[in-house]
Protein backbone atom coordinates (compact mmCIF):
# COMPACT_ATOMS: atom_id res chain seq x y z
CA UNK A 1 0.00 0.00 0.00
CA UNK A 2 1.22 3.48 -0.84
CA UNK A 3 2.31 5.35 2.27
CA UNK A 4 0.58 8.63 2.94
CA UNK A 5 2.45 11.84 3.48
CA UNK A 6 1.76 12.93 7.04
CA UNK A 7 1.79 16.46 8.38
CA UNK A 8 1.63 16.80 12.15
CA UNK A 9 0.24 19.95 13.76
CA UNK A 10 0.46 20.58 17.48
CA UNK A 11 -2.25 22.84 18.89
CA UNK A 12 0.00 23.70 21.80
CA UNK A 13 2.18 25.47 19.25
CA UNK A 14 -0.34 26.75 16.69
CA UNK A 15 -3.75 28.32 17.23
CA UNK A 16 -6.95 26.77 15.87
CA UNK A 17 -7.20 29.72 13.50
CA UNK A 18 -3.73 28.99 12.12
CA UNK A 19 -4.59 25.29 11.82
CA UNK A 20 -7.80 26.01 9.92
CA UNK A 21 -6.07 28.55 7.68
CA UNK A 22 -3.53 25.88 6.81
CA UNK A 23 -6.25 23.29 6.15
CA UNK A 24 -8.22 25.71 3.98
CA UNK A 25 -5.40 27.24 1.96
CA UNK A 26 -2.39 24.96 1.89
CA UNK A 27 -3.87 21.51 1.56
CA UNK A 28 -3.97 20.80 -2.13
CA UNK A 29 -0.97 22.97 -2.95
CA UNK A 30 1.73 21.37 -0.81
CA UNK A 31 -0.60 18.37 -0.80
CA UNK A 32 -0.09 16.28 2.29
CA UNK A 33 -2.92 13.78 2.04
CA UNK A 34 -2.94 13.17 5.74
CA UNK A 35 -2.86 15.61 8.67
CA UNK A 36 -2.52 14.70 12.31
CA UNK A 37 -3.63 17.16 14.98
CA UNK A 38 -1.96 16.82 18.35
CA UNK A 39 -3.12 18.21 21.70
CA UNK A 40 -6.62 19.25 20.65
CA UNK A 41 -7.40 19.59 24.38
CA UNK A 42 -11.10 20.29 23.89
CA UNK A 43 -10.55 23.38 21.75
CA UNK A 44 -13.48 24.54 19.64
CA UNK A 45 -13.79 24.74 15.83
CA UNK A 46 -11.03 22.28 15.00
CA UNK A 47 -10.91 21.36 11.29
CA UNK A 48 -14.08 23.20 10.29
CA UNK A 49 -15.02 23.99 6.71
CA UNK A 50 -12.63 21.52 5.04
CA UNK A 51 -12.94 21.27 1.30
CA UNK A 52 -10.01 19.08 0.33
CA UNK A 53 -9.72 15.29 0.05
CA UNK A 54 -7.55 14.95 3.12
CA UNK A 55 -7.60 12.55 6.04
CA UNK A 56 -7.39 14.33 9.41
CA UNK A 57 -6.63 12.43 12.62
CA UNK A 58 -7.38 14.35 15.80
CA UNK A 59 -5.35 12.75 18.60
CA UNK A 60 -7.36 13.52 21.73
CA UNK A 61 -10.62 15.20 22.72
CA UNK A 62 -12.18 17.95 20.60
CA UNK A 63 -14.44 20.81 21.65
CA UNK A 64 -17.47 22.31 19.93
CA UNK A 65 -18.20 22.24 16.16
CA UNK A 66 -15.36 19.87 15.25
CA UNK A 67 -15.51 19.06 11.52
CA UNK A 68 -18.41 21.45 10.99
CA UNK A 69 -19.33 22.26 7.38
CA UNK A 70 -17.03 19.50 6.14
CA UNK A 71 -17.21 18.90 2.38
CA UNK A 72 -14.43 16.56 1.32
CA UNK A 73 -12.33 15.50 4.27
CA UNK A 74 -12.39 12.30 6.27
CA UNK A 75 -11.86 13.30 9.89
CA UNK A 76 -11.20 10.78 12.66
CA UNK A 77 -11.26 11.88 16.29
CA UNK A 78 -9.36 9.57 18.62
CA UNK A 79 -11.27 10.78 21.64
CA UNK A 80 -14.53 12.53 22.57
CA UNK A 81 -16.07 15.67 21.14
CA UNK A 82 -18.15 18.52 22.55
CA UNK A 83 -21.30 20.06 21.10
CA UNK A 84 -22.28 20.00 17.43
CA UNK A 85 -19.64 17.76 15.87
CA UNK A 86 -19.96 17.82 12.05
CA UNK A 87 -22.77 20.36 12.23
CA UNK A 88 -23.93 21.38 8.79
CA UNK A 89 -21.62 18.84 7.14
CA UNK A 90 -22.17 18.81 3.37
CA UNK A 91 -20.37 15.58 2.46
CA UNK A 92 -17.29 13.61 3.52
CA UNK A 93 -16.97 11.69 6.75
CA UNK A 94 -16.43 12.39 10.42
CA UNK A 95 -15.73 9.55 12.83
CA UNK A 96 -15.59 9.91 16.62
CA UNK A 97 -14.02 7.05 18.50
CA UNK A 98 -15.30 8.21 21.89
CA UNK A 99 -18.57 9.93 22.78
CA UNK A 100 -20.18 13.05 21.38
CA UNK A 101 -21.96 15.75 23.34
CA UNK A 102 -25.18 17.46 22.27
CA UNK A 103 -26.38 18.24 18.75
CA UNK A 104 -24.04 15.83 16.94
CA UNK A 105 -24.52 16.18 13.19
CA UNK A 106 -26.95 19.08 13.59
CA UNK A 107 -28.45 20.09 10.24
CA UNK A 108 -25.93 18.00 8.26
CA UNK A 109 -26.83 18.08 4.56
CA UNK A 110 -24.78 15.06 3.55
CA UNK A 111 -21.84 12.84 4.43
CA UNK A 112 -21.51 10.27 7.17
CA UNK A 113 -21.06 10.97 10.86
CA UNK A 114 -20.06 7.86 12.78
CA UNK A 115 -19.91 8.00 16.57
CA UNK A 116 -18.52 4.80 18.02
CA UNK A 117 -19.61 5.58 21.57
CA UNK A 118 -22.82 7.28 22.63
CA UNK A 119 -24.16 10.65 21.58
CA UNK A 120 -25.89 13.01 23.95
CA UNK A 121 -29.18 14.83 23.48
CA UNK A 122 -30.44 16.32 20.20
CA UNK A 123 -28.28 14.09 18.04
CA UNK A 124 -29.20 14.78 14.40
CA UNK A 125 -31.36 17.78 15.21
CA UNK A 126 -32.70 19.32 12.00
CA UNK A 127 -30.82 16.75 9.91
CA UNK A 128 -31.05 17.77 6.25
CA UNK A 129 -29.80 14.74 4.35
CA UNK A 130 -26.71 13.47 6.14
CA UNK A 131 -26.37 10.01 7.65
CA UNK A 132 -25.50 9.44 11.30
CA UNK A 133 -24.55 6.10 12.81
CA UNK A 134 -24.18 5.85 16.59
CA UNK A 135 -22.60 2.75 18.07
CA UNK A 136 -24.04 3.41 21.54
CA UNK A 137 -27.07 5.35 22.75
CA UNK A 138 -28.53 8.73 21.86
CA UNK A 139 -29.94 11.23 24.36
CA UNK A 140 -33.30 12.97 24.54
CA UNK A 141 -34.87 14.86 21.63
CA UNK A 142 -32.66 13.21 19.04
CA UNK A 143 -33.56 13.83 15.38
CA UNK A 144 -35.80 16.72 16.44
CA UNK A 145 -37.31 18.23 13.27
CA UNK A 146 -35.00 16.11 11.10
CA UNK A 147 -35.88 16.73 7.48
CA UNK A 148 -33.92 14.20 5.43
CA UNK A 149 -31.23 11.57 5.92
CA UNK A 150 -30.86 8.68 8.37
CA UNK A 151 -30.07 8.26 12.04
CA UNK A 152 -29.01 4.72 12.94
CA UNK A 153 -28.77 4.02 16.67
CA UNK A 154 -27.27 0.70 17.73
CA UNK A 155 -28.11 1.24 21.39
CA UNK A 156 -31.11 2.91 23.05
CA UNK A 157 -32.78 6.23 22.28
CA UNK A 158 -33.73 8.76 24.96
CA UNK A 159 -37.03 10.56 25.48
CA UNK A 160 -38.85 12.36 22.69
CA UNK A 161 -37.16 10.61 19.78
CA UNK A 162 -37.98 12.13 16.40
CA UNK A 163 -40.18 14.90 17.71
CA UNK A 164 -41.75 16.89 14.82
CA UNK A 165 -39.93 14.70 12.33
CA UNK A 166 -40.15 15.42 8.60
CA UNK A 167 -38.75 13.01 6.01
CA UNK A 168 -35.66 11.74 7.84
CA UNK A 169 -35.84 8.11 8.99
CA UNK A 170 -34.55 6.77 12.29
CA UNK A 171 -33.49 3.17 12.94
CA UNK A 172 -33.06 2.01 16.54
CA UNK A 173 -31.73 -1.34 17.66
CA UNK A 174 -32.29 -0.97 21.40
CA UNK A 175 -35.06 0.49 23.53
CA UNK A 176 -36.82 3.73 22.72
CA UNK A 177 -37.52 5.64 25.92
CA UNK A 178 -40.35 7.54 24.24
CA UNK A 179 -41.30 8.91 20.85
CA UNK A 180 -41.74 12.63 20.27
CA UNK A 181 -44.81 14.31 18.80
CA UNK A 182 -45.76 12.89 15.39
CA UNK A 183 -43.04 10.21 15.37
CA UNK A 184 -44.22 6.63 15.03
CA UNK A 185 -42.75 3.18 14.76
CA UNK A 186 -43.30 1.59 11.37
CA UNK A 187 -42.61 -1.87 9.98
CA UNK A 188 -39.20 -2.39 8.41
CA UNK A 189 -39.33 -2.92 4.62
CA UNK A 190 -36.63 -4.58 2.54
CA UNK A 191 -35.27 -1.20 1.53
CA UNK A 192 -34.93 -0.28 5.22
CA UNK A 193 -32.83 -3.40 5.86
CA UNK A 194 -30.73 -2.49 2.84
CA UNK A 195 -30.22 1.10 4.03
CA UNK A 196 -29.23 0.03 7.55
CA UNK A 197 -26.99 -2.73 6.21
CA UNK A 198 -25.24 -0.37 3.84
CA UNK A 199 -24.65 2.26 6.56
CA UNK A 200 -23.45 -0.33 9.08
CA UNK A 201 -21.06 -1.80 6.53
CA UNK A 202 -19.43 1.62 6.13
CA UNK A 203 -18.73 1.72 9.87
CA UNK A 204 -17.66 -1.86 10.46
CA UNK A 205 -20.17 -2.26 13.29
CA UNK A 206 -21.15 -5.83 13.72
CA UNK A 207 -24.91 -5.91 14.14
CA UNK A 208 -27.70 -7.24 12.00
CA UNK A 209 -30.09 -4.86 10.22
CA UNK A 210 -32.83 -7.33 11.21
CA UNK A 211 -32.52 -6.13 14.82
CA UNK A 212 -33.56 -2.55 14.03
CA UNK A 213 -36.88 -0.77 14.31
CA UNK A 214 -37.94 2.02 11.96
CA UNK A 215 -39.23 5.36 13.25
CA UNK A 216 -40.64 7.89 10.81
CA UNK A 217 -43.03 10.79 10.70
CA UNK A 218 -46.77 10.12 10.99
CA UNK A 219 -47.14 13.39 9.05
CA UNK A 220 -50.06 14.60 11.15
CA UNK A 221 -48.22 17.89 11.71
CA UNK A 222 -47.70 18.51 8.01
CA UNK A 223 -50.96 20.40 7.71
CA UNK A 224 -52.67 22.65 10.15
CA UNK A 225 -55.63 20.93 11.72
CA UNK A 226 -58.05 23.39 13.19
CA UNK A 227 -59.86 20.61 15.07
CA UNK A 228 -56.76 19.24 16.75
CA UNK A 229 -57.16 21.63 19.67
CA UNK A 230 -53.37 21.83 19.85
CA UNK A 231 -53.23 18.42 21.47
CA UNK A 232 -50.67 16.37 19.65
Amino acid at each position, binding site marked *: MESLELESIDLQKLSVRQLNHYLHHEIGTTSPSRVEILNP*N*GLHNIAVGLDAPVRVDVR*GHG*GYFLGGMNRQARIVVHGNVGWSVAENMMSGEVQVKG*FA*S*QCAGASAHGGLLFIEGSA*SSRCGISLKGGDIVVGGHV*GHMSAFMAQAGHLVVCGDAGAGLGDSLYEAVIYVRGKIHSLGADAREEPMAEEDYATVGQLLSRTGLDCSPREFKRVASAKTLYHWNVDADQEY
Partner: protein
Amino acid sequence: MCGIIGLLIKPESKRSRLGEWVTPMMDCMGDRGPDSAGLAVFSPVGDGPLRRFSLFCGQPGFDWTELGKAFERDTASEGNLSAIENHGRLVSPIAPESLEEWLSREFPSVHLLSTGRSIEVYKDQGHPAEIAERYGFAGLAASHCVGHTRMATESAVSPAHAHPFTAGEDFCLVHNGSLSNPWSLRRRLEKRGVDFETDNDTEAACRFLEWRMREGESLEDALKAAFIELDGFYTLLMATAGKLVLVRDAFACKPAVVAETEDYVAVSSEFRSLAHLPGIRSAELFEPVPEEIYSWSL
Protein backbone atom coordinates in the same frame (compact mmCIF):
# COMPACT_ATOMS: atom_id res chain seq x y z
CA MET B 1 -23.42 31.79 29.07
CA CYS B 2 -21.46 31.43 32.36
CA GLY B 3 -18.93 28.78 33.29
CA ILE B 4 -18.97 26.47 36.26
CA ILE B 5 -16.06 24.55 37.70
CA GLY B 6 -15.56 22.21 40.63
CA LEU B 7 -12.78 20.05 41.96
CA LEU B 8 -12.67 17.48 44.74
CA ILE B 9 -9.26 16.06 45.59
CA LYS B 10 -9.34 12.56 47.00
CA PRO B 11 -5.99 11.89 48.71
CA GLU B 12 -5.19 14.25 51.56
CA SER B 13 -1.59 14.38 50.39
CA LYS B 14 -2.62 16.18 47.18
CA ARG B 15 -5.02 18.75 48.62
CA SER B 16 -2.24 21.33 48.78
CA ARG B 17 -2.45 21.39 44.97
CA LEU B 18 -6.11 22.39 44.71
CA GLY B 19 -5.38 26.02 43.89
CA GLU B 20 -2.73 25.13 41.34
CA TRP B 21 -5.11 22.74 39.56
CA VAL B 22 -8.28 24.84 39.73
CA THR B 23 -6.90 28.25 38.73
CA PRO B 24 -6.30 27.33 35.05
CA MET B 25 -9.84 25.87 35.02
CA MET B 26 -11.19 29.25 36.09
CA ASP B 27 -8.96 31.24 33.73
CA CYS B 28 -10.14 29.12 30.80
CA MET B 29 -13.81 29.41 31.72
CA GLY B 30 -13.34 33.18 31.79
CA ASP B 31 -14.23 32.87 28.08
CA ARG B 32 -17.74 31.84 29.11
CA GLY B 33 -18.16 34.45 31.80
CA PRO B 34 -15.90 37.49 31.80
CA ASP B 35 -17.79 39.90 34.07
CA SER B 36 -17.30 38.45 37.54
CA ALA B 37 -16.14 35.30 39.23
CA GLY B 38 -16.07 33.51 42.52
CA LEU B 39 -14.66 30.49 44.24
CA ALA B 40 -15.77 28.65 47.38
CA VAL B 41 -13.15 26.43 48.97
CA PHE B 42 -13.71 23.90 51.73
CA SER B 43 -11.24 22.78 54.35
CA PRO B 44 -12.21 22.00 57.93
CA VAL B 45 -11.20 24.62 60.48
CA GLY B 46 -10.91 21.87 63.09
CA ASP B 47 -13.07 20.56 65.87
CA GLY B 48 -14.40 22.97 68.44
CA PRO B 49 -16.32 26.19 68.38
CA LEU B 50 -14.39 28.06 65.69
CA ARG B 51 -16.14 29.15 62.51
CA ARG B 52 -14.87 30.75 59.35
CA PHE B 53 -16.51 33.91 58.08
CA SER B 54 -15.77 35.37 54.64
CA LEU B 55 -16.35 39.11 54.48
CA PHE B 56 -16.52 41.50 51.56
CA CYS B 57 -16.28 45.26 51.38
CA GLY B 58 -16.45 47.11 48.08
CA GLN B 59 -14.91 50.35 49.45
CA PRO B 60 -11.41 50.83 48.06
CA GLY B 61 -8.78 50.94 50.79
CA PHE B 62 -11.14 49.67 53.48
CA ASP B 63 -9.28 49.34 56.78
CA TRP B 64 -9.63 45.69 57.77
CA THR B 65 -7.26 46.12 60.74
CA GLU B 66 -9.68 48.64 62.19
CA LEU B 67 -12.53 46.16 61.77
CA GLY B 68 -10.48 43.47 63.51
CA LYS B 69 -9.78 45.70 66.49
CA ALA B 70 -13.39 46.87 66.72
CA PHE B 71 -14.57 43.27 66.58
CA GLU B 72 -12.53 42.21 69.59
CA ARG B 73 -13.45 45.35 71.51
CA ASP B 74 -17.20 45.28 70.82
CA THR B 75 -18.01 41.60 70.82
CA ALA B 76 -15.65 40.30 73.50
CA SER B 77 -15.02 37.42 71.11
CA GLU B 78 -11.71 36.19 69.93
CA GLY B 79 -11.18 36.71 66.26
CA ASN B 80 -8.39 36.04 63.88
CA LEU B 81 -8.76 38.39 60.94
CA SER B 82 -6.75 38.39 57.75
CA ALA B 83 -7.54 40.29 54.58
CA ILE B 84 -6.69 40.57 50.92
CA GLU B 85 -8.01 43.61 49.08
CA ASN B 86 -11.84 43.52 49.27
CA HIS B 87 -11.97 40.29 51.24
CA GLY B 88 -11.67 39.69 54.94
CA ARG B 89 -11.42 36.29 56.54
CA LEU B 90 -12.41 35.97 60.16
CA VAL B 91 -11.97 32.86 62.28
CA SER B 92 -13.88 33.17 65.51
CA PRO B 93 -16.18 31.31 67.91
CA ILE B 94 -18.81 34.09 67.64
CA ALA B 95 -22.35 32.97 66.73
CA PRO B 96 -23.17 33.85 63.09
CA GLU B 97 -26.28 35.83 64.01
CA SER B 98 -24.30 37.93 66.53
CA LEU B 99 -21.67 38.68 63.91
CA GLU B 100 -24.30 39.65 61.36
CA GLU B 101 -26.03 41.89 63.82
CA TRP B 102 -22.74 43.54 64.81
CA LEU B 103 -21.67 44.03 61.19
CA SER B 104 -24.93 45.63 60.13
CA ARG B 105 -24.70 48.02 63.07
CA GLU B 106 -20.99 48.91 62.99
CA PHE B 107 -19.87 48.19 59.44
CA PRO B 108 -22.93 48.25 57.18
CA SER B 109 -20.73 48.31 54.06
CA VAL B 110 -19.24 44.93 54.95
CA HIS B 111 -21.13 41.87 53.70
CA LEU B 112 -20.94 38.39 55.10
CA LEU B 113 -20.30 36.10 52.12
CA SER B 114 -20.16 32.78 53.89
CA THR B 115 -20.34 31.13 57.27
CA GLY B 116 -19.30 27.69 58.36
CA ARG B 117 -16.70 25.41 59.82
CA SER B 118 -15.26 24.62 56.43
CA ILE B 119 -16.34 27.06 53.71
CA GLU B 120 -14.54 30.15 52.55
CA VAL B 121 -15.82 32.28 49.65
CA TYR B 122 -14.12 34.77 47.37
CA LYS B 123 -16.09 36.63 44.75
CA ASP B 124 -15.69 39.89 42.94
CA GLN B 125 -16.30 41.80 39.77
CA GLY B 126 -13.79 41.66 36.92
CA HIS B 127 -12.27 39.07 34.63
CA PRO B 128 -11.92 35.67 36.33
CA ALA B 129 -8.18 35.46 35.58
CA GLU B 130 -7.68 38.84 37.23
CA ILE B 131 -9.78 37.85 40.26
CA ALA B 132 -7.84 34.57 40.61
CA GLU B 133 -4.62 36.58 40.57
CA ARG B 134 -5.95 39.24 42.98
CA TYR B 135 -6.94 36.73 45.63
CA GLY B 136 -4.14 34.25 45.08
CA PHE B 137 -6.34 31.29 44.11
CA ALA B 138 -3.30 29.38 42.84
CA GLY B 139 -1.96 29.08 46.39
CA LEU B 140 -5.16 27.75 47.97
CA ALA B 141 -5.10 24.35 49.64
CA ALA B 142 -8.43 22.62 50.30
CA SER B 143 -10.26 19.35 49.84
CA HIS B 144 -12.81 20.67 47.35
CA CYS B 145 -14.11 23.80 45.75
CA VAL B 146 -16.71 25.17 43.37
CA GLY B 147 -16.23 28.18 41.14
CA HIS B 148 -18.11 30.26 38.64
CA THR B 149 -17.41 32.70 35.85
CA ARG B 150 -20.42 34.90 35.12
CA MET B 151 -21.85 36.43 31.99
CA ALA B 152 -24.79 38.29 33.45
CA THR B 153 -28.07 37.87 31.60
CA GLU B 154 -30.55 38.34 34.36
CA SER B 155 -29.55 40.78 37.11
CA ALA B 156 -26.85 43.38 37.71
CA VAL B 157 -23.11 42.84 37.42
CA SER B 158 -21.83 43.38 40.94
CA PRO B 159 -19.74 41.49 43.48
CA ALA B 160 -22.95 40.57 45.32
CA HIS B 161 -24.48 39.10 42.16
CA ALA B 162 -21.39 37.02 41.45
CA HIS B 163 -21.57 33.32 42.29
CA PRO B 164 -21.15 31.23 44.43
CA PHE B 165 -24.25 31.99 46.45
CA THR B 166 -24.37 30.72 49.99
CA ALA B 167 -27.14 30.09 52.49
CA GLY B 168 -26.95 28.74 56.01
CA GLU B 169 -23.62 27.21 56.92
CA ASP B 170 -21.14 25.32 54.78
CA PHE B 171 -23.34 25.30 51.70
CA CYS B 172 -22.89 27.02 48.38
CA LEU B 173 -24.21 26.80 44.86
CA VAL B 174 -23.15 27.96 41.40
CA HIS B 175 -25.50 28.03 38.43
CA ASN B 176 -25.25 28.12 34.67
CA GLY B 177 -28.63 28.94 33.18
CA SER B 178 -31.61 31.05 34.08
CA LEU B 179 -34.69 30.42 36.18
CA SER B 180 -38.10 31.66 35.16
CA ASN B 181 -39.86 31.40 38.51
CA PRO B 182 -37.36 32.79 41.03
CA TRP B 183 -39.79 35.45 42.23
CA SER B 184 -42.66 33.11 43.05
CA LEU B 185 -40.20 30.84 44.82
CA ARG B 186 -38.84 33.80 46.66
CA ARG B 187 -42.26 35.06 47.79
CA ARG B 188 -43.02 31.62 49.20
CA LEU B 189 -39.73 31.47 51.05
CA GLU B 190 -40.02 35.02 52.39
CA LYS B 191 -43.34 34.08 54.00
CA ARG B 192 -41.41 31.41 55.86
CA GLY B 193 -38.90 33.93 57.15
CA VAL B 194 -36.12 33.37 54.62
CA ASP B 195 -34.19 36.61 53.92
CA PHE B 196 -32.69 37.47 50.53
CA GLU B 197 -29.71 39.68 49.82
CA THR B 198 -30.01 40.23 46.06
CA ASP B 199 -32.58 40.05 43.26
CA ASN B 200 -30.64 37.26 41.53
CA ASP B 201 -32.43 34.10 40.31
CA THR B 202 -29.67 31.79 41.55
CA GLU B 203 -30.03 33.07 45.08
CA ALA B 204 -33.63 31.79 45.04
CA ALA B 205 -32.45 28.28 44.12
CA CYS B 206 -29.72 28.39 46.76
CA ARG B 207 -32.06 29.52 49.53
CA PHE B 208 -34.75 27.06 48.47
CA LEU B 209 -32.34 24.13 48.82
CA GLU B 210 -30.92 25.37 52.10
CA TRP B 211 -34.43 25.88 53.49
CA ARG B 212 -35.37 22.29 52.59
CA MET B 213 -32.18 21.03 54.25
CA ARG B 214 -32.90 23.09 57.35
CA GLU B 215 -36.32 21.43 57.43
CA GLY B 216 -34.55 18.10 57.66
CA GLU B 217 -34.06 16.91 54.11
CA SER B 218 -30.80 15.71 52.64
CA LEU B 219 -29.41 17.80 49.78
CA GLU B 220 -30.34 14.95 47.43
CA ASP B 221 -33.99 14.99 48.58
CA ALA B 222 -34.05 18.79 48.39
CA LEU B 223 -32.87 18.49 44.78
CA LYS B 224 -35.66 16.06 43.96
CA ALA B 225 -38.07 18.75 45.16
CA ALA B 226 -36.12 21.34 43.15
CA PHE B 227 -36.65 19.33 39.95
CA ILE B 228 -40.37 19.95 40.46
CA GLU B 229 -40.20 23.47 41.86
CA LEU B 230 -37.49 25.14 39.78
CA ASP B 231 -38.68 26.25 36.38
CA GLY B 232 -35.98 27.14 33.89
CA PHE B 233 -32.60 26.07 32.69
CA TYR B 234 -29.87 25.05 35.02
CA THR B 235 -26.74 23.15 35.58
CA LEU B 236 -26.21 23.48 39.33
CA LEU B 237 -23.01 22.60 41.13
CA MET B 238 -23.17 22.60 44.90
CA ALA B 239 -20.86 21.86 47.77
CA THR B 240 -21.23 21.14 51.45
CA ALA B 241 -18.45 20.49 53.98
CA GLY B 242 -18.26 16.87 52.86
CA LYS B 243 -19.37 16.69 49.25
CA LEU B 244 -19.73 18.00 45.76
CA VAL B 245 -23.13 17.62 44.05
CA LEU B 246 -24.06 18.23 40.41
CA VAL B 247 -27.42 18.27 38.58
CA ARG B 248 -28.74 19.35 35.19
CA ASP B 249 -32.36 20.22 34.40
CA ALA B 250 -34.63 18.02 32.28
CA PHE B 251 -33.69 19.81 29.05
CA ALA B 252 -29.95 19.76 29.81
CA CYS B 253 -29.31 22.79 27.61
CA LYS B 254 -26.47 23.97 29.79
CA PRO B 255 -23.29 21.98 29.45
CA ALA B 256 -21.27 20.00 31.97
CA VAL B 257 -18.53 17.44 31.78
CA VAL B 258 -17.05 15.33 34.56
CA ALA B 259 -13.56 13.83 34.74
CA GLU B 260 -12.64 11.38 37.46
CA THR B 261 -9.28 9.82 38.31
CA GLU B 262 -8.01 8.19 41.49
CA ASP B 263 -6.81 11.65 42.56
CA TYR B 264 -9.79 13.88 41.82
CA VAL B 265 -13.28 14.53 40.52
CA ALA B 266 -13.31 17.58 38.28
CA VAL B 267 -16.42 19.24 36.87
CA SER B 268 -16.54 21.96 34.27
CA SER B 269 -18.79 23.48 31.64
CA GLU B 270 -16.28 22.44 28.99
CA PHE B 271 -13.57 19.83 28.66
CA ARG B 272 -10.95 22.33 27.51
CA SER B 273 -10.71 23.77 31.02
CA LEU B 274 -9.79 20.30 32.33
CA ALA B 275 -7.19 19.48 29.69
CA HIS B 276 -4.25 20.57 31.88
CA LEU B 277 -5.14 18.31 34.82
CA PRO B 278 -2.67 15.52 35.62
CA GLY B 279 -3.83 12.13 34.38
CA ILE B 280 -6.65 13.64 32.29
CA ARG B 281 -5.83 11.44 29.31
CA SER B 282 -6.73 8.34 31.26
CA ALA B 283 -9.54 9.94 33.31
CA GLU B 284 -13.03 8.53 33.21
CA LEU B 285 -14.93 11.22 31.31
CA PHE B 286 -18.68 11.58 31.04
CA GLU B 287 -21.45 14.05 30.45
CA PRO B 288 -24.03 14.08 33.25
CA VAL B 289 -27.53 13.17 32.09
CA PRO B 290 -30.66 15.26 32.80
CA GLU B 291 -32.28 15.14 36.26
CA GLU B 292 -29.77 12.71 37.69
CA ILE B 293 -28.13 13.64 41.00
CA TYR B 294 -24.36 13.18 40.97
CA SER B 295 -22.76 13.33 44.39
CA TRP B 296 -19.15 12.79 45.41
CA SER B 297 -18.20 12.61 49.08
CA LEU B 298 -14.81 13.17 50.63
